[in-house]
């Protein structure tokens, strides 16, 4: 029974001055399905809404058309009026006769009136095909998974946990801390990285709402927003963390030496090791690839020296499952491998190091005790050349983007060098100095003034050996001439680059990534923290190069998103989502391909009634679908339809004028 009520709004003079409202109402009455039509001064006012409510009851209306302003303005208001009258709010259609007629055709009242009538006719036709829809509620598991225990992961975990939401923090290395733990001092304030980081690390370890899973990796993520299930591999550490006290006897006695990743391979660690002194948890793990006991069954010294008997060579990888509602991905960054710069002699000359190696050297807890040394002969370098944009902004050899932090940390390095080696001199080859940020420009100035560093604008074309030293030949673009600098040490500010396994992670999580491997945000401007998949958020350099403040800000933003998501017991969703008519579905899965949210999965249903043979059909996950309709338009068999914008509704609109 189609009984449509049409309510035409004067909007004071806004509509009435340019559209003949009574004529429009009369025209609406001529439509067969319209059983009631009336005009009023302000439909959105209380009396106006009361008219709608009364008419719904009195005239047993089955759908309501309000001809007024844009649906983007008052659709919610009128929907509420409908539900107050006991009618499904989605039986409302709004004909936009203000923004689309009276306001834009002010010179031609006749045409504006005609157009308003047509718009109403379209809305009536659409409303006849409207169906009762109900808000979708999806239950939520209030537990967050944070992948990565760097500063981004730590910050996100703490912020979420402080909101009394349980967090599972997964870190692949034995300790949390990440890249920030490797840094000495941080720009632009030169406060000690460890000093500000370690308290946070300890907070994580002791927080009642954080479950820390170090030395672990996420293997699988199933489900959808609010209802994910993660499988996490806890790699065998061969040390019983419950009993280990972290006394260090084992790693002192261990005979096997391995290049130390934490110090960028400058020094050695043992096969049983804790990555750095302030590690959290401060428990050692055995590196199974190098431990002779595990490799050959000989040795066993650590087990002997351990008073607690915490060493267990039989330990196996363990898979743990956690039900979670949201994920924050904070896997950080890797350094770009500068080997394409052959002209620099990367790999050939020992005294060319990366800035992170330099960072470790100048670090007080670093392998050289805070003094930079030349890898070739251990001498303290006096003339150090810093080359910026190694890889960054270089389409030919490297990558197109700017790594964002190199300008700043190179300035910092110049200062640190000056602090550690007072009679040193820094030469810095740069393309541009990008120092946008609070106190950044000042910091660069400070570096230039305080250290007297020579900033040379230009690209380095060649580095060659001259005696023990390196000759750096480059162009000084400001002078327009070639310069050569003799250097004891060359530091390359290599680009930030995503981890190689980022694409794997992205596939595992079902989110998208860009051509470099950075995980993609849902919208570059308006949704920089969300991914395309609902309930998965990004923090830190896994999304794009960032400095620490940006990373922390994004981590907190992600945490806020998680907290927002978990604010209610269920997630409320607009019911305007896709539905599959399995009878028509051919199972071609094109919809699965085009869905930007992976909201469509497949299921098997019997071929016919009671048939044993099965066929594949598509199934929309209500929790994930956002209602864009991409799948509907590509579905050839018309098996998918979009509630609220069904084919029938749109065609009704098209054929009604």
């Amino acid at each position, binding site marked *: 029974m189609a009984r449509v009520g049409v309510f035409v709004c004067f909007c004071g003079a806004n509509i009435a001055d340019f559209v003949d409202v009574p004529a429009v109402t009369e025209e609406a009455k001529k439509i067969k399905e319209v059983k009631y039509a009336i005009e009023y001064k302000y439909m959105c006012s209380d009396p106006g809404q009361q008219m709608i409510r009364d008419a719904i009851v009195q005239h047993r209306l089955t759908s309501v058309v309000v001809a007024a302003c844009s649906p983007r303005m008052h659709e919610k208001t009128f929907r509420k009026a409908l539900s107050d009258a006991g009618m499904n709010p989605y039986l409302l259609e709004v004909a936009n006769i203000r923004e689309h007629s009276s306001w834009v*055709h002010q010179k031609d009242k006749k045409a504006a009136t005609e157009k308003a009538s047509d718009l109403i006719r379209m809305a009536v036709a659409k409303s006849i095909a409207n169906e009762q829809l109900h808000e979708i509620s999806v239950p939520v598991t209030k537990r967050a998974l944070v992948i990565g225990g760097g500063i981004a992961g730590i910050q996100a975990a703490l912020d979420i946990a402080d909101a009394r939401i349980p967090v599972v923090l997964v870190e692949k290395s034995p300790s949390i801390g990440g890249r920030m733990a490797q840094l000495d001092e941080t720009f632009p304030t030169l406060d000690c990285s460890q000093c500000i980081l370690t308290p946070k690390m300890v907070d994580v370890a002791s927080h009642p709402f954080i479950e820390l899973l170090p030395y672990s990796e996420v293997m699988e993520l199933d489900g959808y927003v609010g209802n994910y299930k993660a499988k996490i591999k806890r790699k065998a550490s061969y040390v019983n963390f419950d009993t280990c006290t972290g006394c260090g006897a084992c790693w002192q006695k261990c005979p096997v030496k391995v290049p130390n990743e934490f110090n960028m391979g400058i020094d050695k660690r043992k096969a049983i090791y804790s990555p750095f002194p302030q590690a959290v948890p401060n428990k050692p793990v055995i590196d199974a690839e190098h431990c002779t006991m595990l490799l050959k069954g000989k040795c066993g010294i650590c087990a002997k020296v351990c008073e607690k008997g915490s060493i267990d060579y039989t330990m196996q990888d363990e898979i743990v499952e956690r039900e979670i509602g949201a994920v924050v991905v904070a896997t950080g960054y890797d350094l770009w491998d500068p080997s394409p710069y052959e002209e620099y002699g990367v790999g050939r000359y020992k005294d060319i190091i990366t800035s992170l190696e330099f960072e470790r050297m100048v670090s007080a807890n670093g392998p050289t005790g805070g003094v930079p040394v030349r890898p070739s002969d251990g001498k303290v370098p006096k003339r150090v050349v810093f080359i910026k944009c190694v890889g960054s902004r270089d389409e030919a050899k490297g990558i197109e983007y700017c790594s964002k932090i190199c300008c700043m940390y190179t300035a910092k390095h110049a200062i640190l060098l000056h602090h550690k080696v007072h009679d040193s001199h820094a030469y810095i080859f740069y393309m541009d100095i990008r120092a946008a940020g609070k106190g950044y420009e000042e910091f660069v100035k400070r570096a230039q003034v305080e250290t007297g560093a020579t900033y040379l604008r230009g690209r380095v074309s060649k580095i060659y050996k001259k005696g023990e030293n390196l000759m750096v030949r480059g162009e000084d673009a400001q002078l327009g001439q070639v310069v050569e600098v003799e250097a004891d040490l060359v530091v390359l500010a290599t680009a930030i680059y995503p981890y190689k396994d980022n694409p794997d992670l992205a596939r595992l999580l079902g989110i998208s990534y860009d051509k470099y491997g950075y995980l993609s945000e849902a919208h570059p401007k308006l949704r920089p923290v969300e991914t395309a998949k609902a309930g998965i958020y990004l923090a830190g350099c896994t999304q794009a190069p960032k400095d620490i403040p940006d990373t922390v800000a994004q981590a907190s933003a992600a945490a806020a998103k998680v907290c927002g998501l978990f604010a209610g017991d269920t997630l409320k969703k607009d019911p305007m989502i896709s539905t599959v008519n399995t009878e028509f579905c051919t199972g071609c899965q094109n919809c699965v391909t085009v869905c930007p949210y992976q909201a469509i999965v497949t299921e098997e249903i019997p071929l016919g009634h009671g048939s044993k043979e099965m066929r594949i059909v598509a199934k929309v996950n209500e929790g994930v679908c956002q209602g864009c*309709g991409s799948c509907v338009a590509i579905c050839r068999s018309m098996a998918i339809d*979009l509630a609220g914008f069904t084919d029938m509704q749109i065609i009704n609109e098209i054929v009604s*004028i």
Partner: protein
Amino acid sequence: MEAEIKEKIVSMEKPHMEAPPDWQPVIMGILCNWCSYAGSDLTGTSRIQYPPNIRIIRVPCSSRVDPWFIIKSLQTIADGVLISGCHPGDCHYISGNYYARRRFLVTKKLLNFVGFHENRVQFSWVSAAEGAKFAKVVTKVTEDIRKLGPLHLYKKENS
């Protein structure tokens, strides 16, 4: 003059069909909710005037537009169709307008191939901030179609 007439003949579907004197084109506008519809609202709030020939349908995303909406519109009342979505990269649904863009190009070329003038079906990217652009686009499309005259191809009997 002659060249003009010739131009007219080759660019028209049915040159011998004259438009009735009081004829006004009808244009079906299909706009995505997040950019173009918001943009058209802005046109309204800014009181920028445009020809009253367009009838607007709101869809969530330009990727919701199935080519047969266009065909159906052309077969019923419409003399032309305008479809508008978000600028590339701005899609509220990430990638919808990219899929739509491909479909639109093929649809447009195919319709042109079977005899619809290319100006009968037009597409635009209008963002929520481009109220003035929306008015410009509608004006252009309306004038284009007014020049082409009424559409006579494959119309439904009762349209």
